[in-house]
C-alpha cells in the first residue's frame, strides 16, 4: 500500500542518491563551490535526520568518495546507529583511496569525534593496510595524527619513526631505512614513493630529466598517466598503460591532449578507450540491442577550472561504453561533430533537435547525457520528449533515460529535462548499467518497498 509519505520518502532517497553521485562540493559551470557545499550539507542533514536507517544504506550505492566521507563523518559523529553500519562503513573505507581516508580521520579529529566506534574503525583500518611503514613515509603527518587520535601504540620501529625519527641509528624496515638515508644519500631516494622522492630530489638539486628517468619504475598507475605529458617533454617515457585506466579518467586524459596530438595518436587512443569500455561492459557487452545516444558537448560541458571537462569526459566515456554494450549504436553529438575523439566544449545546447534526430531511427533505448541546461531554445527538449511519449509512443517502446553528470545546487538535485523521462546522476561511466536500474524507481513504476529492498540487498551484498 503506497501512501504519500512513502512516495515522498522514495523521492527523497533518490534525490539524495543523485546528489551523492554527482556533487563533489567543487565549483561547477553554473554554481560556485560554496553553493554546492551548502546545498549538499543541507541534504545530508535532512536525510540523516529523517531517514537515519536509509542514510547509512546509501553507502552501498555507487556514490562518490566525497559524499561517502561526509556520510561516515556524520554517522560517527552521532550517537546510536544501526548494528550493521560499522560493517558497511568499514567496507566503504576499504574502497576509498588512502589519502582521502586519512583526510577523513583528520577531519574527525578536528571535529573532536573520538568515540569507541571511531577508535575501533581507525584501528581496524590501519591494521588492514598492507604496508603501514610505506603509508607512514608517504602520508607522514596524516598517519601520525590518526595514530594519536585513536590512542594507538605502534610497536617497534614504526612508533619511533613517527614520533622520534632520528632516535635510531638505522632501521630494519627497508622503506624507513631508505627515508633515513635519503637525507644525505642521493641514490637512496629512488626507493621512496614518488611524492616523497620528489621533495628529496629538489633538496639534492637533481635535474628533472635524470630524476624522472630513475624514479619511473616507482610510479603508481595514476602518477604514470599524470606525468606522461610533462615527462615526454624531458625525453622520458613513463610507459603509462592507457587501456588499464578507468574509462572516465582515460576520457579526461584524451580530452586534455591538443587536437594535433589526438590526431597523431588516434589509433592508440581509440584502442585504449575501446579496451577500457569492453572491460567495463564485461559480460553485458553486445546485449543491449539498438541504442542511440545524445551526447552534450556544448560549452557548459567544460565544467569548471577545478573539474576540467568532467561532463564532457563522462559523455565521451558513455559513448564508448554504450558502443560496447549495444548491438547497434548511434551516437549524436550536439555540435554535429562526427569524430568523438575530437570532442571539445563549444557552442549552445540544441538538445531538442538532436533528440528528434535520435528518435528518427526508432532505437530500443535512447540515452541522453547532458547537464540538463537546454537553451536553444529553452525547454524544447522537454516538450519533444513529452509529445513523443504522449502522442507518438504511448506504449513506451523506446526506453529513454537521461543521465546527468552535474549536480544543480539550487534544485538539490540534478536538473531534469522532462518529468516523463527518468533522470539519474552519473559520475563514472562504469555505473551506467546500475544507474539505468536505479532510474526505474524514479519513473514511479516501482515503489518504496522495492527501493528499500534494493538498498538493503545492495548493503547486504557488501
Amino acid at each position, binding site marked *: 500500500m503506497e501512501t504519500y509519505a512513502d512516495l515522498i520518502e522514495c523521492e527523497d532517497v533518490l534525490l539524495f542518491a543523485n546528489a551523492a553521485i554527482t556533487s563533489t562540493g567543487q565549483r561547477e*559551470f*553554473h554554481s560556485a563551490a560554496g553553493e554546492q557545499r551548502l546545498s549538499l550539507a543541507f541534504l545530508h542533514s535532512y536525510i540523516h535526520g529523517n531517514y537515519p536507517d536509509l542514510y547509512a544504506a546509501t553507502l552501498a550505492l555507487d556514490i562518490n568518495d566525497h559524499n561517502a566521507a561526509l556520510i561516515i563523518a556524520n554517522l560517527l559523529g552521532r550517537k546510536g546507529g544501526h548494528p550493521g553500519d560499522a560493517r558497511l562503513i568499514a567496507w566503504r573505507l576499504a574502497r576509498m583511496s588512502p589519502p582521502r581516508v586519512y583526510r577523513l580521520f583528520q577531519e574527525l579529529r578536528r571535529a573532536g569525534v573520538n568515540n569507541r566506534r571511531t577508535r575501533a574503525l581507525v584501528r581496524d583500518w590501519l591494521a588492514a593496510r598492507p604496508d603501514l611503514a610505506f603509508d607512514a613515509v608517504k602520508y607522514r603527518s596524516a598517519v601520525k595524527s590518526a595514530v594519536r587520535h585513536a590512542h594507538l601504540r605502534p610497536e617497534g620501529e614504526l612508533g619511533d619513526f613517527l614520533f622520534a625519527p632520528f632516535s635510531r641509528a638505522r632501521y630494519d624496515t627497508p622503506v624507513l631505512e631508505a627515508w633515513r638515508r635519503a637525507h644525505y644519500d642521493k641514490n637512496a631516494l629512488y626507493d621512496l614513493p614518488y611524492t616523497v622522492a620528489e621533495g628529496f630530489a629538489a633538496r639534492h638539486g637533481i635535474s628533472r630529466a635524470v630524476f624522472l628517468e630513475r624514479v619511473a619504475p616507482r610510479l603508481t598507475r595514476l602518477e604514470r598517466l599524470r606525468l606522461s605529458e610533462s615527462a615526454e617533454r624531458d625525453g622520458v617515457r613513463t610507459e603509462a598503460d592507457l587501456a588499464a585506466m578507468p574509462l572516465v579518467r582515460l576520457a579526461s586524459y584524451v580530452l586534455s591532449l591538443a587536437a594535433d596530438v589526438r590526431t597523431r595518436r588516434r589509433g592508440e587512443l581509440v584502442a585504449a578507450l575501446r579496451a577500457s569500455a569492453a572491460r567495463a561492459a564485461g559480460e553485458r557487452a553486445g546485449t543491449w540491442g539498438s541504442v542511440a545516444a545524445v551526447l552534450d558537448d*556544448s*560549452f*557548459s560541458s567544460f565544467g569548471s577550472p577545478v573539474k576540467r571537462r568532467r561532463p564532457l569526459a563522462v559523455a565521451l566515456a558513455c559513448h564508448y561504453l554504450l558502443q560496447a554494450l549495444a548491438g547497434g549504436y548511434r551516437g549524436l553529438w550536439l*555540435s554535429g561533430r562526427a569524430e568523438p575523439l575530437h570532442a571539445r566544449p*563549444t*557552442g*549552445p*545546447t540544441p538538445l*531538442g*533537435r538532436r533528440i*528528434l534526430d535520435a*528518435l*528518427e531511427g526508432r532505437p530500443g533505448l535512447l540515452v541522453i547525457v547532458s547537464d540538463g541546461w537546454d*537553451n*536553444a*531554445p*529553452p*525547454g*524544447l527538449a*522537454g*516538450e*519533444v520528449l*513529452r*509529445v*513523443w511519449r*504522449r*502522442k*507518438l509512443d504511448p506504449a513506451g517502446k523506446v526506453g529513454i533515460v537521461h543521465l546527468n553528470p552535474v549536480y544543480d545546487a539550487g534544485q538539490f538535485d540534478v536538473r531534469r529535462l522532462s518529468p516523463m523521462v527518468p533522470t539519474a546522476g552519473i559520475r563514472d561511466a562504469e555505473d551506467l548499467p546500475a544507474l539505468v536500474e536505479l532510474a526505474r524507481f524514479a519513473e514511479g513504476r516501482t515503489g518504496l518497498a522495492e527501493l528499500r529492498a534494493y538498498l538493503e540487498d545492495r548493503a547486504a551484498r557488501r
Partner: protein
Amino acid sequence: MIDLTGLDTRPAQTWGAMRLVPLVRREPIEDLRLHAKVYGDEASVVLLPDRTVYTAYVPHAFVASWTGDGTPAAAYGTQLGQPLRHVCVRTRRRMARRVDTNRLRFLPLHLAVEGFLALHFGGPEIAWEEWSRQAIAHGLSPRAEDAYTGAEVRGLDDALKVFEIYPGQCGLLLYAGDTLASAFVVPHPEDYRALHPTLIRDLYGELIYEYALFYPARDFPAAIDESAVTSLADLRAEAERHEREWAGFHDSVMAAGLLRAPARVEEVYRMGPYTLSRFLPSFERKSENHIGETITGADGRTAYLKTFRLSEAQSRRGHLLSELAAHGWNLAATAATLRISVPLLAARLERSGFGHLLRQDVMDAYRKQLNERTRRTRRGGAASPPA
C-alpha cells in the same frame, strides 16, 4: 536605418536579470576586420592567408599605443582604416591608471562617450550674447555623462561567462529586466570571440544598472501543441516553427525600439565600400533612446554596431540640447518651440547642469525675473506652493 538583415536571431539565454540574444551571420564579412596593429597587445593578430584587401576598424572603446612615440592614445570615436583622430590619454587623469611602464589599464568607453558627446554637441555656433565666453570658446567639452561599467552591473559577469557562443555568432543584444541595454555587432565570428569578454568593460546607463537588480528574467519555455502532431516529421516542423516564432517576436517586439529609424544620422567617414556613421535618437521622453555607431557595407549590411542606452535624465538633457541646436542656440526661439518663457528655459538649462554656459549676469537676471513672478503670484492670494 539600422538594418539587421543577414543577421539571424537565435534563442536567447537568460541568467539572473540578464537576457542575451545572439545574432548569427550566415556569411561573415571577411574584408573588414579588427586591425592587429591597433589591437597591439590586447588580442591575437588576424592574418589573412590570401592577399585580399581588407579594411580595419578601430572601435571607439579601444585604446592602444599607435602614436609615433609610443604614448597611449584613445580612439576619438570609431574609425576606419588607419587610426588618425585620437585623444592622448593623460595618465594623471582618474580614468586611466598605469599598470606597468608601457601599458595602461583604463576605462576606454569613458573617453569614447565623452568624445562622442562632444562631437555631437559642439556648443553654440552662433555667438548669441547670452552665452558665456567659455561656451563659445570650448563648446560643451568636456561633457561627461554618468554611466556604470559592466563590472558594476549585477550578474552581467556571470551571464557573459555562462553564455554559450553560437557557431558563426557575430553579435549580441543584451537585455536587463527585458529592457534593451546594448547592441553589439561585429563583422566576423573570430572578432566576436575575441571581443565577447570586453562587454564586461563597456559602459551601461543607470537604467540598466537599476533593472539588473530586479527580478530575474524568465525563459519563454517552448510549448508544442500536441494535437497538431501525428508523426515525427510533424514534431520536427513544430519545433522549427517555435524557433522561427521566437526570432520574429524578438525582432518585431523586443528590439523594435532599436530598429526604429534613429532621428539623426551623421556620416562620419567613408572608406572603400564601408561607411561609418553615428546616430542620435529622437530624445522622446518615455521611450527607448540609444546613441551609437554603425559601419555599413555598400549593400547596406550592418558590419559593426555599438549602442549605448541613455537613461531618462540623459534623454531629457539630450532633448534640450538638440532643441537648442535646431534653433541655432537662440534661447528665445527655443523657448517658443518648447512653449515656455525664456527665464524658465534658462532655469531648465541650469537644472540640467548647463548653467555655466550662460553668462553670469544674464543668468542672474533670469533668476530674478522668475523669483519676482513667483512672489507676485503668491501675493495674489494663492496658496504657497508645496515645499
